[in-house]
């Protein structure tokens, strides 16, 4: 048997040099397949690699570039639909069209003030018929809250805070960021490197890989939760969304203070999937919050007349905030009976 010719002493430093070069390329913004491909070509002409080895390197470079390519909103949507369907296999929905309409109007209104108001098929909200205190967000914008969570919500501002937190997970891409470095990148790569080169059954193979990615993502969302960093980031973003939408930014802290801590009986999966309420409150307290300017608020809804006269003339005056306050309080009281 041939003994690892590639490990012969003179070649090892050369390969290490290529590795270092590749790492350098990865940290810069160069197109990865181009830079790695040219490295392979250079190594080939320098006699460090033979033709086969150079080809393998180029293939790997192409695969890495495919894996690194951004997941599109369309893909997020299809991954999100499958994740939502997986959650509905565990939790049954709460059948109450009136409550669903209320939640969707509120949530879709809040999403307009998120960092990503436009996603592939929009944000959608549903209630799960479970006493457990919990909420889930799929990468495609499917947001699910339990009746147990609704029972702890004391105002429309607090309900908006819960929805804004989940909207933030979607808008900030937390779902796919949690698995992208693992399964999804790997699936694309496996395919690119030639695992599916046979003439038949590629789609089946791909959809089975898709199934594995969904199972992994559903497991994270349902049981282990996002990283603490993502949770605290979603809290900060939710507070900003509340401010831009004309809700009380402090309602988030108000809600978090009512949420179950680890070990509390009614906590269900929530305590396992979210940081302790006290750490969330401390993080919110320590994070700077800039009051929302009338201009920033108006950029999504009613522009301040002085900031944009043409727009203001086309749109009309903003609703009276005092009237808004009373309408929110009244409709929330009516909806609460359905929680």
């Amino acid at each position, binding site marked *: 048997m041939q003994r690892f010719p590639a490990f012969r002493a003179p070649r090892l430093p050369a390969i290490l040099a290529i590795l270092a070069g590749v790492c350098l390329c990865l940290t810069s913004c160069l197109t990865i397949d181009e830079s790695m491909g040219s490295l392979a070509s250079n190594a080939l002409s320098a006699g460090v690699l033979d033709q086969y080895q150079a080809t393998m390197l180029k293939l790997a470079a192409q695969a890495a570039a495919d894996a690194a390519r951004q997941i599109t909103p369309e893909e997020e949507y299809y991954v999100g639909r499958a994740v939502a369907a997986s959650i509905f296999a565990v939790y049954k929905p709460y059948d109450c069209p009136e409550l669903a*309409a209320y939640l969707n109007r509120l949530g879709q209104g809040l999403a307009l003030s998120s*960092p990503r108001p436009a996603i592939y098929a929009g944000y959608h909200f549903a209630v799960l018929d479970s006493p457990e205190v919990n909420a889930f967000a799929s990468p495609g914008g499917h947001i699910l809250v339990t009746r147990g969570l609704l029972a702890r919500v004391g105002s429309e501002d607090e309900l908006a805070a819960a929805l804004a937190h989940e909207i933030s997970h979607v808008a900030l891409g937390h779902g796919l960021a949690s698995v992208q470095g693992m399964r999804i990148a790997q699936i694309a790569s496996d395919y690119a490197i030639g695992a599916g080169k046979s003439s038949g059954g590629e789609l089946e193979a791909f959809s089975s890989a898709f199934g594995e990615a969904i199972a992994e993502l559903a497991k994270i969302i349902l049981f282990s939760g996002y990283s603490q960093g993502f949770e605290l980031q979603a809290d900060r973003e939710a507070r900003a969304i509340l401010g831009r939408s004309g809700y009380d930014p402090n309602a988030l802290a108000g809600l978090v203070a009512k949420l179950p801590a680890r070990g509390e009986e009614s906590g269900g999966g929530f305590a396992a999937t979210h940081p302790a309420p006290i750490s969330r409150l401390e993080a919110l307290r320590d994070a700077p919050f800039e009051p929302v300017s009338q201009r920033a608020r108006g950029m999504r809804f009613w522009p301040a007349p002085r900031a944009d006269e043409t*727009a203001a003339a086309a749109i009309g005056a903003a609703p009276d905030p005092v009237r808004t306050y009373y309408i929110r309080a009244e409709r929330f009281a009516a909806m609460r009976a359905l929680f």
Partner: protein
Amino acid sequence: MKRLFFRAFALTMLFAGAAAFGQGRAADGQGNAPAVQAKAVSAGAMTVQVGRAQIWQAPSVVAPVLASLAYKDKVVVLGSSEGWAKVQVPGSAKVGYMFMSALTQRPVSSSAAEAAVPGITASEIALAGKGFNDSVEESFRKSTHIDYAFVDAMEAYAFPADEAAGFLSGAGGDGTP
């Protein structure tokens, strides 16, 4: 054996690359990884990356709607500010505003799939894009028998942006669809 080593080496490179970009995306915080940028986009031209996108007369969702664009439509962007893109309304001299997050500079699907070669199958299109799309979903649903009925039902609740914005401000207080 030599080939085996290089296969392992290539795979290592591959995962190193994937992991590096995975981290980059997570650290970015916006979910907008720098990733691979499009190479052949003419100045100002962008593509709609969401199912439907509206162009408003002013940078506000309660402004009059000038046009609705579909997935993969192209639009000329004149500028952007606070999440809004100022665009040329396609086929018109008018200028309007749309959400920046509805647009991308990258091609939204594989050009190979778009070439529409006669006889190309859905499965080939899915694989050319190497993405998760409706064909993959169909195959996934067939093999797992997972029920999408509740997902479809929740997606049916879709309110126009002006209505949702108006609701926040107190319109439609009865909550009926």
